């Protein structure tokens, strides 16, 4: 049975959804303000815009001049940061709970008016270019980018969130301003607060601070339906002297699809712990790999499921690819034994409980699921997980992991 806690939920007249959850284990409060402003929402040819906007949000507001948001957070004994993903940009604070009003004041101020100036924009563009270079120096990041571009021909999930160098260089101050005005509006945001607070006070204060901000006209998300993949795709990149690596990507449904729990269970059966199928097959004993993983991203739209392995030098990447497909074929052919399924279910349940140890974990999960359609969806997802059968796993493997729909990227060392 799901243990997702129930928050107080209020939608302000301007569309901002406010979720508040009391957790009084420690005098801590966490806030997450999540905007539907990820790389998914960038206009074509403007990769990196959502990410650069996130940088700009720390450049100050009328009430909090440059540096003051970080400085004030520190003086109060807290931390803050932000992250941009394919689907959203999330801003968070964790503070001693007596200061719970402060993040609300800051967030309301920068939602109402983030005074982007040209000079700050140019400085942050340089920083973003350095961040992009950092990714380019990371072989695993480059391998992931390669397989995303290979598997997705149209959908914006094919682009790196940090942006492509040429797009960052080409970006204008006007592009950024327009993105802010069309996405950083209350009717495109969710505020979640969790911690040792009085829920009614928080709701009232959120209404007072955010209620005067006008709703905006949301830019429609362009349709990017990905055409079905009917034949396997391959690419190879070289990067330094890295050991050989391979990533196999398959098209899987969105986080809210009925099959999402079975796909999640599959990821655990394949890639979590030392008793999972991939570890036992490829890493344990004298296996060909030193590391292996199976990852499904929780995304708003259909995306990719990755199986990635780092092989010992000299290992055969083609052989590895074939052997991974054989592991999947076996899962499609023979339903997973009940005890193996129970183990994976228990692993996921434990993982979810561990995520609820912190106020930030609670606030983040509430905001995240709300943007997918409602915080209650996490409860439905957990209930769905508990009901997944071996036959369900076999069915999703057969449906989404056909050999012809795979995209595979290899990383090999630069030729001497």
């Amino acid at each position, binding site marked *: 049975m799901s243990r997702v806690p129930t928050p107080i939920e209020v939608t302000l007249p301007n569309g901002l959804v406010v979720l508040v959850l009391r957790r009084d284990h420690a005098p*801590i409060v966490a806030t997450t303000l999540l905007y539907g402003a990820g790389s998914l929402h960038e206009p074509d040819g403007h990769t990196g815009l959502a990410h650069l906007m996130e940088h700009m949000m720390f450049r100050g507001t009328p009430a909090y001049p*440059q540096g003051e948001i*970080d400085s004030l*957070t520190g003086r109060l004994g*807290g931390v803050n940061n932000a992250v941009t993903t394919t689907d959203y940009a999330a801003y968070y604070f964790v503070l001693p709970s007596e200061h719970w009003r402060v993040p609300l004041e800051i967030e309301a101020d920068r939602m109402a008016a983030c005074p982007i100036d040209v000079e700050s924009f140019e400085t942050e563009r340089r*920083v973003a270019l350095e961040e992009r270079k950092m990714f380019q120096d990371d072989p695993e990041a480059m391998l992931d980018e390669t397989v995303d571009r290979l598997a997705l021909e149209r959908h914006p999930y094919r682009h790196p969130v940090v942006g492509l160098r040429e797009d960052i260089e080409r970006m204008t101050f006007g592009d950024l301003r327009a993105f802010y005005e069309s996405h950083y509006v209350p009717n495109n945001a969710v505020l979640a607060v969790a911690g040792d607070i009085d829920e009614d006070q928080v709701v009232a204060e959120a209404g007072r601070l955010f209620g005067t901000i006008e709703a905006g006209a949301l830019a429609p998300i362009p349709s990017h339906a990905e055409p079905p993949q009917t034949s396997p795709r391959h690419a190879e990149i070289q990067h*330094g002297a890295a*050991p050989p690596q391979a990533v196999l990507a398959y098209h899987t449904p969105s986080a809210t699809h009925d099959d999402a729990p079975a796909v999640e269970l599959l990821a655990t059966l394949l890639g979590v712990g*030392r008793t999972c199928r991939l570890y036992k097959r490829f890493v344990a004993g004298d296996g060909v790999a030193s590391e292996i993983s199976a990852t499904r991203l929780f995304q708003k739209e259909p995306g990719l499921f990755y199986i990635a392995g780092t092989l010992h030098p000299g290992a055969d990447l083609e052989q590895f690819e074939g052997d991974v497909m054989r592991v999947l074929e076996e899962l499609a052919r023979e339903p997973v034994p009940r005890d193996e399924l129970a183990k994976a279910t228990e692993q996921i349940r434990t993982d979810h409980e561990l995520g609820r140890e912190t106020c930030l974990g609670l606030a983040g999960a509430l905001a995240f699921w709300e943007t997918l359609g409602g915080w209650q969806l996490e409860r439905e997802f957990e209930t769905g997980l508990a009901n997944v059968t071996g036959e369900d796993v076999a069915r999703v493997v057969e449906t989404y992991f056909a050999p012809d729909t795979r995209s595979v990227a290899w990383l090999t060392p630069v030729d001497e």
Partner: protein
Amino acid sequence: MADARGRVERVALPNGAVVLVVVDATVPTFAATLTVEAGSRYDPVGRSGLASLASSLLVEGEGAGEIAFRFEPLGASVDVATGYETTTLGAVGLGEHCADAVGLLAEMIRFRSPAVSIIRDARRRQLTEIAEEDNEPSLVCRREFFRLVFGGHPRGLPVEGDAVSLGRISRADVSEFMDTRWSPAGAVLAVSGDVEAPRVIDAACRAMESWKASDAAVSSVTPPPPRAFTGRRFVEMEREQAHVSLGGIGIARSDPLYHAAAVMDVILGDSAGFGSRLATRVREEEGLAYVIESDTAGTAGIDPGLFWAYTAASPDHVEQAVAGIVDEMRKMRSEPPTSHELESAVAYLSGRHALDRETNDARAAALVRMERYGLGLDYGDRYASLVRAVTRGDVLALARRVIDPDDYSIVAVGPASTGLFD
């Protein structure tokens, strides 16, 4: 404020091991760590990587690895980490399984006599991981910086060893290390979570009471050099950015100025706070780098650690970024921080201390540090007053001890065009 946490229960066993348990029923989870004094600090000369290789056998292959497999059907997971000072077995899971888990951890640490084939497989995995790290310029930069500062002392050598040292390690070396270093003397088992303390303590005591220290002599540890080997080193790697580490020897955890070091880190270059002097100048004002940080307290341990600053920037920016770092180092030791900076840093550290202990895993790790460094189990309660007692003069004294803008070690890793040492 409500607080679901109980007081810390401490039991010292006759064999030297200590059990610490704190109850927190907020979430039905637990974390347990079993720490032994078996880090790379104790690697014999020419055998760097031995502590790491031995510990990997705890979770891989037959023997101890099979014990680890008993965790997973419970939804729990176990992992092992070896650092310079210690090897730590850690388990997390649902609280109802905690007593079983501590029993399994105690069983695992008494694993001995690994088969040659298991050592061979583990060594192969470790070599591949080293090959991966060799391709990461930030990790190469860190590794070479430690080597430059501490020379051939274990503090200067990578915990995971290298191809040559791992190749020298025999089964006898591994067995001897396990016998002598995986000892109950100094071992700490710490548990935090939704557990019944008496039941967990009972399970831990029963599981560990027959764990005996070996009769074999424990080799002595040579202290690290008192003064850094200063110098400069450039490692060419064709990449977009150049990575730079610079600094020298820092302080030990027992140093009276340890809390002054924590304060100075926040003011100068704590990576968690973008408002530090280095981040403000190099990142926010000049836009030269995405990553810019410095640290002193983070590596302070039984032995002195480092004072070091790190950044990564394009070759055409890196010289200006390093000049900015050195200039801020000079300012840090030329005059004390402002009262405002001191007050802000103290407030930040006091609040952060509580925030950083929100998870069971973090609380268990904090208990281990309190026990190992003799901080007292009330250290968490005293921490705020300890940092409040730091004066501007303390920070200046600390800066003058560990920072020397005219005589520091520096390592750069990047493309030939880096030009830093031209």
